[in-house]
């Protein structure tokens, strides 16, 4: 039974329609890889699905209700990590992780946050300010949120960017685990053969004629 159903969805930048309308359906344990050339609108589409932007063309249904009407339900069940990580450079890793989730209404104890940092390989960086981290470490800090949430739908924009080999392996394992637990994954990624293996659906965006 499809949980997410998108029909003829496309996005606009200014007055230009970005890509040919796309349709897809996703059920439990399925995953979608969105690919396409640079500037084709992968991020815009992902942000529209996440609910940051309104869907200008086509429509998306979540559990058979139009996303425009079931926003609260959708926001409670979906989790988005975009290009901008949302980390504050004046806060340390622990504070960043906890405050980000608490603002979204997810309670995280200090112990849980420390464990999460351990898992993403940021053990020993608990009290380091996010501003002093490397790009890859900042990404890990953002991805650490995934180990603390219970949302069924993960929407990730280029999660592998800036990660080293070990980081990629860890993330891959986490994503596989999520899919095995009947989670849903929507992701954009530049050619990454190992993610392709697990992906059930792929969407290649094409230029609007």
């Amino acid at each position, binding site marked *: 039974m499809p949980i997410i159903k998108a029909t003829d969805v496309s996005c606009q930048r200014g007055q230009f329609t970005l890509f040919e309308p796309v349709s897809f359906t996703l059920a439990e344990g399925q995953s979608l890889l969105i690919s396409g050339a640079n500037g084709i609108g992968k991020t815009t589409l992902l942000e529209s699905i*996440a*609910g*940051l*932007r*309104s869907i200008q063309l086509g429509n998306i249904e979540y559990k058979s209700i139009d996303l425009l009407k079931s*926003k*609260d*339900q959708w*926001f*409670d069940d*979906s989790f*988005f990590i*975009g*290009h*901008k*990580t*949302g*980390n*504050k*450079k*004046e*806060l340390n890793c622990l*504070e960043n992780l906890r*405050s*980000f989730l*608490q*603002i*979204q*209404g997810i*309670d995280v104890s200090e112990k849980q946050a420390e464990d999460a940092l351990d898992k993403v390989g940021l053990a020993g960086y608990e009290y380091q300010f996010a501003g002093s981290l490397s790009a890859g470490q900042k990404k890990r800090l953002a991805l650490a949120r995934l180990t603390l949430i219970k949302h069924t739908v993960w929407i990730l924009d280029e999660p592998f960017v800036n990660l080293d080999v070990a980081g990629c392996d860890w993330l891959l394992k986490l994503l596989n685990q999520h899919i095995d637990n009947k989670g849903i994954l929507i992701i954009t990624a530049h050619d990454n053969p190992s993610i392709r293996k697990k992906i059930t659906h792929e969407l290649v965006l094409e230029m609007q004629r």
Partner: protein
Amino acid sequence: MKPFLSLVKRDLTLGLRKKSQIYQPLVFQLLVVTMFPLGLGSGAKTLALIAPAVIWILALLASLLTLDQIFKNDYDDGSVESYVLTSYPLSMAVMAKVLAHWLLTGLPLVLFAPVLGVLLHLPSSSYGVLMLSLLIGTPIFSFIGSIGSALTMSLKHGGLLLTVLVMPLLAPVLIFGAGAVVESALGNSASQHLLLLSGMLVLSFTLVPFASAAAIKINLE
């Protein structure tokens, strides 16, 4: 309520770590207020006459220095997205941001006002009204400013646009705020002015969060 408090707490932590946001407006006020006797002459009578207006205008200008920061940083690092992508209403997040901004920048202005009063020979009887009027008025600055900040957050140089947008809307606040201090300096009751000022605060409290939330949503498109 918990997300609201977490957001206020996080912003206060941020503000107290950066500090410049807190003391720079005060330094600015002090610098400008020094220019008045230099330009006008140090006559106590002249200064006392313009003191209420000058202090209020300085409060307005000093808040303008920090208003764009209400949402600008959050937009740049992506935190704004996390306020939108929850089932908690965005207007609550706006309210939290405004409260934190006021505590960090508005409250210091209220507490600093007597210093300016002394420098401008404000009659001693009107200090109470001065602080009370600013206590009611500066939150309105933060509220109205949040609309301007939400509208300009994605712009690189939105400061001037924010000023153009916010200043006309704050004219009534200035009229009644400075008016209250003038009345008390003349020995009259300022209660009417303060009441109207409070009315405006209640109005912005009820309406502005929705306007700012709408601005954020349009701006993210």
